């Protein structure tokens, strides 16, 4: 990449690092964005893209590294400071005030003031109309923001950025919820902003879009900067290889286990607008990985199987017997366990004690003569805490104070205590340190060896490839691939997860089901 003249560089990050407690989110992030350029930032989930963006946006402060904006060293303490400097971030789902008008949203907090300190609405509407005209979109500046499509909401965020005269626009997966036409319009706007000499950063998992829109691409992996290339000099396969390429074997001590009879059989599971026609089978001793992008519907499938949510049609069978829908207790009785995605909100009652949390599912069986005591809960939970090596001073300590990894161990202990035949585990190692990660992986492998069927949802490709006997890939609520361990490669999974060859103008089937 040719070294641009300093005056042309909008944003420059060098070896920026950020960690949250013991979890390193960003090791050495670097990116250089020039004026009049659309710069793609790609990487797996957890590669550190979002952390990088949040540092630029002033949400987080970096621990180390250089951060230059328009040639000056900067350090933003707040999002307001970053905005004032001329940085605008457009998120996947914009946050507008739904009851205010489009114009009021654009000028929130800096309304033009006329005589007598009254807000000059006429000036506001005129300027908003001018902005929309410049962007080439037709939105009534007086209408309320409620009811606008996500695409229109993004346009309003962009209008806000332009009215602030932002020199850097960061778009974090803006196209995830857009249809083909809306994507085209967004791209047209992005190109016109580029031609005005602004710098743009475009984060996306859709490579066809990256290659259509951007001129430069930076790859990140595991919180590290990997490479920067002009789009013209690279290919999808090269980028994918850089995104995933890493030693997988040591972190994932998968030992082969004899695979037995089917434990979980799901057929034709559908829920309008969320997922449809999901067929899957998990056998005893088998680890099935459910891969896909965030928001593809994997967690929703797991929740429906476990009875947390309902579904419209299809059947769930455990060991040959049908499990009633929307009934968690029946699912637990049938031998299922679910370690959910969000451990603080769904997995644990964080303000409750370690013992109460671990005993929370098995406690019905702990009462003697109808009386359940704290002593019985302590005695029952202690061995499970010990088995998972939960680090706590005492069993009555609340889970609030524990680290993420320790909390995850408590959640796993709680479900192992039920001695399940099927363990559904959603993002088993999200946000936990490397040491605990390896422990969790070893545990999953051991459990499979003991004949437990495991359905593992993970957004970390190496984890899926390292642990799973079989990989199912979910894209937009559908299972798009069923790949055997021997044949599973990062490229295959990524292609199925992004449908890289998918034309933009095909509407996802899920939206059609909503109207049905």
């Amino acid at each position, binding site marked *: 990449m040719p070294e641009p003249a300093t005056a042309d560089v909008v944003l420059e990050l060098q070896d920026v690092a950020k960690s949250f407690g013991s979890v390193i989110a960003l090791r050495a992030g670097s990116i250089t964005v020039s004026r009049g350029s659309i710069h793609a930032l790609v990487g797996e989930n957890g590669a550190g893209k979002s952390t990088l963006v949040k540092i630029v946006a002033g949400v987080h402060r970096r621990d180390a590294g250089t951060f230059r904006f328009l040639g000056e060293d900067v350090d933003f303490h707040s999002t307001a400071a970053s905005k004032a400097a001329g940085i605008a971030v457009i998120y996947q789902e914009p946050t507008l005030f739904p009851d205010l008008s489009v114009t009021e949203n654009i000028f929130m907090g800096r309304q033009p003031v006329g005589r007598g300190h009254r807000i000059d609405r006429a000036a506001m509407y005129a300027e908003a109309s001018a902005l929309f005209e410049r962007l080439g979109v037709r939105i009534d500046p007086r209408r309320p923001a409620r009811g606008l499509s996500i695409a229109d909401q993004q346009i309003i965020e962009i209008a806000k950025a332009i009215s602030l005269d932002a020199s850097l626009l960061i778009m974090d997966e803006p196209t995830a919820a857009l249809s083909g036409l809306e994507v085209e319009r967004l791209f047209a706007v992005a190109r016109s902003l580029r031609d005005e000499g602004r710098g743009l950063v475009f984060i996306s998992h859709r490579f066809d879009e990256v290659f259509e829109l951007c001129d430069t691409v930076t790859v990140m992996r595991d919180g590290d900067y990997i490479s920067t290339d002009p789009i013209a000099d690279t290919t999808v396969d090269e980028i994918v290889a850089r995104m995933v390429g890493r030693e997988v074997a040591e972190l994932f001590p998968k030992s082969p286990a004899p695979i037995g009879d089917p434990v979980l059989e799901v057929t034709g599971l559908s829920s309008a607008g969320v997922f449809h026609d999901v067929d899957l089978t998990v056998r005893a001793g088998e680890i099935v990985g459910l891969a896909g992008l965030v928001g593809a519907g994997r967690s929703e499938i797991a929740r429906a199987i476990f009875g947390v949510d309902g579904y419209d049609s299809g059947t769930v069978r455990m060991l040959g017997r049908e499990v009633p829908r929307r009934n968690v207790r029946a699912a637990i009785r049938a031998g299922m366990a679910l370690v959910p995605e969000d451990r603080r909100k769904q997995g644990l009652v964080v303000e*409750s004690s370690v013992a109460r949390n671990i005993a929370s599912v098995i406690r019905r069986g702990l009462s003697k003569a109808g009386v359940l005591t704290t002593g019985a809960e302590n005695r029952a939970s*202690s061995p499970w805490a010990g088995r998972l*090596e939960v680090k706590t001073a005492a069993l009555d300590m609340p889970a609030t104070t524990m680290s993420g990894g320790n909390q995850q161990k408590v959640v796993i202990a709680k479900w192992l205590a039920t001695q399940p035949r099927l363990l559904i585990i959603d993002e088993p190692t999200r946000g936990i340190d490397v040491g605990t990660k390896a422990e969790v992986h070893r545990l999953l492998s051991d459990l499979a060896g003991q004949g437990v069927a495991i359905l593992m949802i993970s957004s970390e490709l190496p984890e899926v490839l390292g642990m799973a006997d079989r990989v199912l890939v979910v894209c937009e609520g559908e299972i798009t691939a069923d790949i055997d361990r021997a044949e599973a490669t990062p490229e295959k999974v990524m292609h199925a997860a992004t449908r890289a060859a998918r034309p933009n103008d095909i509407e996802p089937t899920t939206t059609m089901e909503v109207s049905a």
Partner: protein
Amino acid sequence: MTSATATAEAPVGRTYRPYSQPWWRRVLLTREFAIIGLLVLVFAWASANVANFNSPLTVYFLGLDNAEIMLIALPMALVIITGEIDLSVASVVGLSSVMVGLLHQDAGLSIPLAGLIAILVGVVAGALNGFLVAYVGLPSLAVTIGTLALYRGLAVGLLGTTAKTDFPDKWTTLAQEHIGTSRYPVIVIPILVLLVVFVWVLHFSSFGRGVYEIGLNDEAAHFSGVNVARTKFVLFILTAAVSAFAGIYITLRTGNARGDNATGDELKVIAAVLLGGVSIFGGRGALHGVVAGVLLIGVIQSAMRLENQTVNVINIVIGALLVLSVMSTSVLAWISRLSARRAGLGNLRRRQAVASSSRTTER
């Protein structure tokens, strides 16, 4: 951290201390015990200083006058621990009172049968509250403000402004009798029975653990198989059924079935529950605190009444006490946050010192 060193020594399959603090700290340094202590203090002070407080009649009337508050406070505590609230309880008391009067005097039913039907009406009233809150998902505050008016309206509408007063002496004297030769009224027996039942339900059953979990994090409770909707539904029914029983008791004790019986008592019940240490946000509280809260309000009332204070002054004192007790939690939290921040600052300074020293060694 101390736990880190412990882990280093402990082999796989380590064991855990069940409690982080000795039992007396866990039991005594709680809000519940603060209220119990305050109750003992006020009772001792009044016995020594208030004329006639020391007589057996004080305890008798304390039991008699606070019985309905005590009864309803028990299930109300459970409802509030799940993070909900039931404002319709006093209206259910009125409705039940009217039912007993009408069924006994107009329909000629015996008191036990009329009472049973009144309790069933209470169950239906509670089921409506519970259905709207638990299954329809409406906020309990709004729902029970509505049913507060609805049930009170039904009660007054059924009987108008008149009262039914002709009840058999057998029942009206039973409602005021002493237990044997003791100084306690008979109503203490059902109170104790219900207390045992609710202590078991809340503190020694899986259902009760679910009640706390719903109050702290209903989503996690749902994920672990707690039937959140059914739990709330059952609690609203229990609250209304106990309120209906309290309505029968009031009717017989006063010999007076009126539509406006117990008007405004819902706030007295909630005040006592909150004074007893139950958090209005749910998830925290215990029944020994609730019992102490009800008794504390009762003791202050009877002591001040004996001192010839007016109702207004009594209300001011109890109101101030409630505000102070709610504030005490926030003040304690503020103090602990302050000390934590001071400790945190110390840590930061230490860290900076370490950082700068390591930098110098690098050079």
